[in-house]
């Protein structure tokens, strides 16, 4: 079966964000997709269903989103780079499996093309209301990595980055897109395969029996043996020790959970990704991510035309949050404005990190679309008392 078609469709394409995401996954080496249809993510599944068999991969449509992500975890332990894509309602169903992926340190990618919520909400229209859920949605305390594409091109690029981060840090990595980015049709450039940086999971250096499977390396990440390589792994969702066997007591809980948290926090330099636009000498900073970046950037330019010292911090990695950057800026600026298609979620993070040294104002949007640049401009002026 398969293997004849190209995984990397080098060239210029005119496709939407969902399709670009699928192509990014294939370029990254994804060969397993466990899917379930849901607007506005269905096109990711459809594209994977068509493309995977031809490149020697497997598409399976599972019976629900719970099964989809669980199958993805299983496939990852079978050695595959595996992904699923969904929207809010499916994301909620996947929460338990995300926790399982975190504690078992299973690399995989979960794409959420956010839509209006809560609940069934606005199935066909934009939302960004799942950002805090991405951070805290599964029970227990853990760290997560979440990237936020702001264009179809970034859907391609950041899906590759998501796989690389998943393989490096051994956990589910979230791609927090939204319906506007998912359904926008734009030029996407797919480079030649040799120009695409791919990271693969680090395998154990020695034969089975040498080293406990969950003993971390220097970056706090253990090497990953797949099933079928003779390691007789035990992988459990229970709190466990370095051998992988359940050890349900305070000492092991502290050791394991602390390492899973530090694994991300202490490696934040490798994970964080943001862009600074017009931040030099800015006194007012807009912080934006996803589809909101485009109107925010336009608003920044409009405000600057009126002489206001406004800049933009574009968050590409949303979790872990760019705490140091905000703290640093808070010492230099008057105010942060955070336009988002929710009632203030990342705004809370900005406010927390600003520590009162600069004001933080959310520019909310209930969902169903994105802010217009004019609306952002108005909100900034109103916030500055210059309505």
């Amino acid at each position, binding site marked *: *079966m*398969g293997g*004849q*078609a*190209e995984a990397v*469709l*080098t*060239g*210029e*394409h*005119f*496709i939407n964000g969902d*399709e670009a995401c699928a192509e990014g996954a294939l370029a990254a080496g994804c*060969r*397993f997709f*466990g899917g379930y249809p849901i607007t506005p993510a269905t096109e990711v599944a459809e*594209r994977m269903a*068509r*493309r995977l*068999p*031809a490149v020697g991969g*497997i598409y*399976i449509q*599972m*019976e*629900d989103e*719970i*099964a*989809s992500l*669980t*199958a*993805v*975890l*299983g*496939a*990852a*332990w*079978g*050695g*595959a780079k*595996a992904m699923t894509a969904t929207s809010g309602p499916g994301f909620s169903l996947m929460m*338990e*499996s995300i926790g*399982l992926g975190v504690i078992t340190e299973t690399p995989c990618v979960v794409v959420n093309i956010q839509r209006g919520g809560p609940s069934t909400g606005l199935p066909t229209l934009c939302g960004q209301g799942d950002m805090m859920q991405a951070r805290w949605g599964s029970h227990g305390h853990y760290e997560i990595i979440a990237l936020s594409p702001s264009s179809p091109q970034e859907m391609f690029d950041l899906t590759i980055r998501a796989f690389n981060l998943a393989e490096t840090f051994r956990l589910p990595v979230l791609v927090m897109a939204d319906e506007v980015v998912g359904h926008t049709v734009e030029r996407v450039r797919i480079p030649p395969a040799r120009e695409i940086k791919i990271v693969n999971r680090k395998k154990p250096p020695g034969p089975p029996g040498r080293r406990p499977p969950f003993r971390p390396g220097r970056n706090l990440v253990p090497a990953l043996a*797949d*099933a*079928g*390589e*003779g*390691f*007789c*792994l*035990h*992988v*459990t*969702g*229970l709190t466990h020790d370095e051998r992988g*066997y*359940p050890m349900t007591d305070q000492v092991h809980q502290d050791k394991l959970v602390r390492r899973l948290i530090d694994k991300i926090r202490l490696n934040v330099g490798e994970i964080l990704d943001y862009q600074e636009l017009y931040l030099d000498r800015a006194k007012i900073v807009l912080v934006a991510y996803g589809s909101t970046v485009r109107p925010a950037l336009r608003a920044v330019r409009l405000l600057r035309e009126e002489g206001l010292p406004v800049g933009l911090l574009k968050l590409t990695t949303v979790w872990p949050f760019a705490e140091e950057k905000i703290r640093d800026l808070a010492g230099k600026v008057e105010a942060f404005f955070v336009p988002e298609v929710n009632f203030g979620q990342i705004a809370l993070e900005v406010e927390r990190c600003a520590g009162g040294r600069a004001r933080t104002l959310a520019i909310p949007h209930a969902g169903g679309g994105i802010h217009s640049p004019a609306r952002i401009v108005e909100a900034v002026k109103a916030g500055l008392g210059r309505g």
Partner: protein
Amino acid sequence: MPHIWCPGCGIGSAVSACITAIQRTGIPPRRMAVVSGIGCTGRVAGYLNLDSFHTTHGRAIPFATGLKLAKPELNVFVFSGEGDLFSIGGNHFIHAARRNIDLTVICVNNMNYGMTGGQVSANTPLGARTTTSPYGNTEIPLNLPSLAAACGAVYVARWLSVDVRRLARAFEEALLKPGLSFVEVISPCPTAFGRRNRLGTAREMIRLYNSQSVIRNNVHPDETVIQEGQKLVLGKFVDLERPTFQDRLAAAASTGPAWPAGKGSS
């Protein structure tokens, strides 16, 4: 070997039978993988020296599906309890059987949720007492062989945990058979279910199950219903051939339209 199961629990015998079966198949242990869920039976994964996956409640089957599809050379079996596989996990069993994924599902049925102290489950007999059916269970239990057969399982059998000889043979057949094989293992739970229904010691429960059961191979799965006043029907009920999910996937990919090679949008 120290383990967490109660004295008299049938899971231990089932595990022994399983190990015997694995050895008899001749499949090298490195090619076997076991996936379990949550519950007393779910702990089996931690006692087998194989690649073993102790997953979330009810989700062993989709995990095993992903594992098997990603690495088809593995012989993957699911070993879990009835509450895990058929209450919370019921939907996943239905679809795995429908797809005929090449997996073996071993289900220990002790008629309650034992690990959490003995609550009512989808396989608790009508009228039985549990901590959450203190006035007597008001629900009809599932008929697992019938459900499995109806959903498309290619191998369906039910034996008592104490019958390690027939169990080992059933496991061996199931492990070697392509497609979704299902073996139900009826086990005593003297600590929870047995105690609350005054079924005596473990030995007395085993004698009871033994004396109240009858082997009827090849009988229609609808006749394997568990009901008061009727003998517990044991046997091998289904053993047929059907293309597996992977057989069909391979056939489709080789005859279906290929994605247009080269550049260009959809």
